[in-house]
């Protein structure tokens, strides 16, 4: 995608004492892009998003929103950015409309402009029917929508959503996904975090995988699936001499995890397509009766597990 990045993380570091919550994270997000930020608990997602939302300052490095630094120009960044944290932030004795109205006022919207923003946000997040409902009595799903509504009340060009799908039922997840897509199609740039890659795969243009404060991979979901492949799961069927085939495989250095199931042999090979082609040729040259040879499509979970494997403790 062309143009200047809307979100530009520049070697971001954030340490809490000895904890390196975020260390050396850099990536860019372009206008209209949905960027998924994926990592297990304690990976540093919230920490880096909070820095981006100008709630915290980095130990080293900087983050730019629309070219403005979160350290030096927090006011300009705030005007352009809506943040939906992973907590709710509620007031006693306030209903949904009053809540949104308050934040609209806080963002400096006046009169007609405020009423418009309010009715649009309530319409967009389907909160119309809940306008007079006290927010203490909202369900998780309603709260998430209200939160999303609050974060977009001032019509920001960038939205930072910290685990918006947490605790939602499948239907609400799909609705949320549609909302996010719709926002992106309207030109908003969105950074959304989750623990689960599959949850974001469909709606994200690109994802970044973070663990222990380090960014392990950035790219489209397909790239992550493919590009990170150092191990390839292969499924092969030989119609005779299966034990001999298995022991032949075992002797090779580039093959591991061999599972035999009747004629079916599954194993993983280190390397990419050329290595696989080479292996097949050798199998045939070794006179094994190969009836089937194929690469098993890696699931997203596999890819994710794989990418994060080295660092999990």
């Amino acid at each position, binding site marked *: 995608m062309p143009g200047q990045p809307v979100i530009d993380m520049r070697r971001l570091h954030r340490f809490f004492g000895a904890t390196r919550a975020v260390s050396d994270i850099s990536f860019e997000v372009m206008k209209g892009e949905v960027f998924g930020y994926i990592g297990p608990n304690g990976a540093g997602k919230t920490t880096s998003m909070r820095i981006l939302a100008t709630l915290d300052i980095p130990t080293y490095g900087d983050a730019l929103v629309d070219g403005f630094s979160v350290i030096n120009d927090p006011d300009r960044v705030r005007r352009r950015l809506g943040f939906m944290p992973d907590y709710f932030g509620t*007031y006693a004795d306030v209903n949904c409309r009053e809540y949104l109205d308050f934040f609209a006022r806080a963002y400096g919207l006046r009169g007609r402009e405020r009423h418009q923003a309010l009715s649009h946000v309530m319409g967009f997040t389907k909160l119309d029917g809940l306008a007079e409902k006290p927010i203490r009595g909202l369900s998780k799903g309603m709260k998430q929508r209200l939160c999303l509504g609050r974060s977009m009340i001032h019509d920001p060009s960038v939205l930072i959503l910290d685990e918006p799908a947490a605790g939602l039922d499948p239907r609400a997840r799909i609705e949320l996904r549609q909302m996010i897509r719709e926002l992106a199609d309207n030109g908003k740039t969105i950074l959304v975090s989750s623990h689960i890659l599959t949850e974001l795969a469909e709606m994200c243009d690109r994802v970044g995988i973070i663990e222990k404060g380090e960014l392990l991979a950035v790219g489209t979901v397909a790239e992550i699936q493919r590009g990170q492949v150092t191990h390839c799961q292969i499924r092969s069927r030989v119609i005779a001499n299966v034990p001999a085939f298995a022991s032949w495989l075992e002797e090779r250095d580039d093959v591991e995890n061999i599972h035999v199931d009747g004629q079916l042999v599954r194993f993983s090979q280190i390397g990419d397509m050329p290595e696989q082609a080479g292996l097949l040729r050798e199998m045939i040259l070794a006179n094994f009766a190969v009836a089937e040879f194929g690469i098993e499509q890696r699931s997203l979970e596999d890819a994710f597990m794989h990418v994060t494997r080295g660092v999990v403790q």
Partner: protein
Amino acid sequence: MNSSDTSSSPFATGDPTKINADVSSKGSFWRAIETAIELGGERLNPILVKEGRQALKSKQFVITFTLLLLAGWVWSMLGVALLWPGVYYAPGGRFMLCGYFVILAIPVLVTVPFSAFRSLAAEREDGTFELLSITALSSRQIVTGKLGSAVLQMLVYYSALAPCIAFTYLLRGIDIVTIVFLLFWTLVASVLLSTVGLVVATITRARHWQVLLSVLLLVGLCIVTFTWTLSFVSLITDTQATAFDDVDFWLAMSAIMTFCISHAIMFVMIAAAQISFASDNRSTRLRAMLLVQQTLWVGWMTFFWIRFEAEEFLYVLVSVAAIYWAFAGACLMGEAAILSPRVKRSLPQSFLGRMCFTWFNPGSGTGYTFAIVNLLTLVIIIVVAGLTAELEGFAGARGNYDWLLYVTLVAAYVVAYLGVGRLIVVLLRQLGRVTILLTVLINLLLVVIGAAFPVFFQG
């Protein structure tokens, strides 16, 4: 928000007529009223609007209000019964006012400041403060909004008791000046205490400290309220009081008033600074305010010194200033030593600017210097004034130089104690973060040790 770029926003297809639809079904009179409220509300601080709405639904407010009305009613009955049958001919205003005053003082001096404290503290605990801090609201607006809603509550409580207080005037025996004086100063005290409550709310976010502070605040508020009501009740009941005819009395009141105002402003500034973004300049304006306070104090005290020709004012002047600067210095020393690039950019760049304003820059070292320089300036002013008085034979002078010794000693104490405190802070900073609260506690501890030391050795 830029309204011109809504074309790309999902809001662009809005239907503005929809909002007015439900309003138009009502009578035009009510519509006019609603419009007026709307228009007025647009200008108001959003926090004030929100908390006004909240208050109407809040149990705490409703309960306090009901209790207030109930207590007012009970006292009216009880008081009249006690005065009976003299209520028809003897002036019972003073007696009745005492009761109403106590009834009013408790919510206004305890409940309101404490709920201002809770309101800001809860904002930080519930995470709503973070949400607010990234809106267009400045931290000062947040604090003034909280203060505004405290004032709103005060006014509601006042108006609830207004008929009762008018009733005391009708009972005779009390003049309108006393009543207004009483209500006015109680209002001022309530505002000031509320600003203190707001500052206390921002001191710490640690849960255990927060609990301790809220207990301390509540106890403090109760003590203040107790002494306040006691002294004012004695003022009410003292029928001989003629202070209102005295010019000096009003001068003193004006002096106190200027300090109340400047302190209220300063407390708001402190609270706002405490909750502002970490890379903001939290200090320069505060230091300017400290200087204003110092100027006011020196001005009034010198004025009284000349007016009353009493040397005691010099002692009061320097003693209070020393305590003031010791405390301010202890707070300033707790500031972070590192300037954010954002702050650096806003500092004066010229040589002259740097020379004059360096001590206004945030930082622990500049804080120490700022306090000391101010105290020393004050000492020089006093010395010059005092010596001039002695030489010119001014009546306030006594012909001895005890005051000179006192002034020098006091200043030296502050410089030394703060210096040791600063040294400890510098050393501790090698190990980790030192907050303002910790710095103040260190300095407090130093003073306590310093005071206990001789006692310990004599004993």
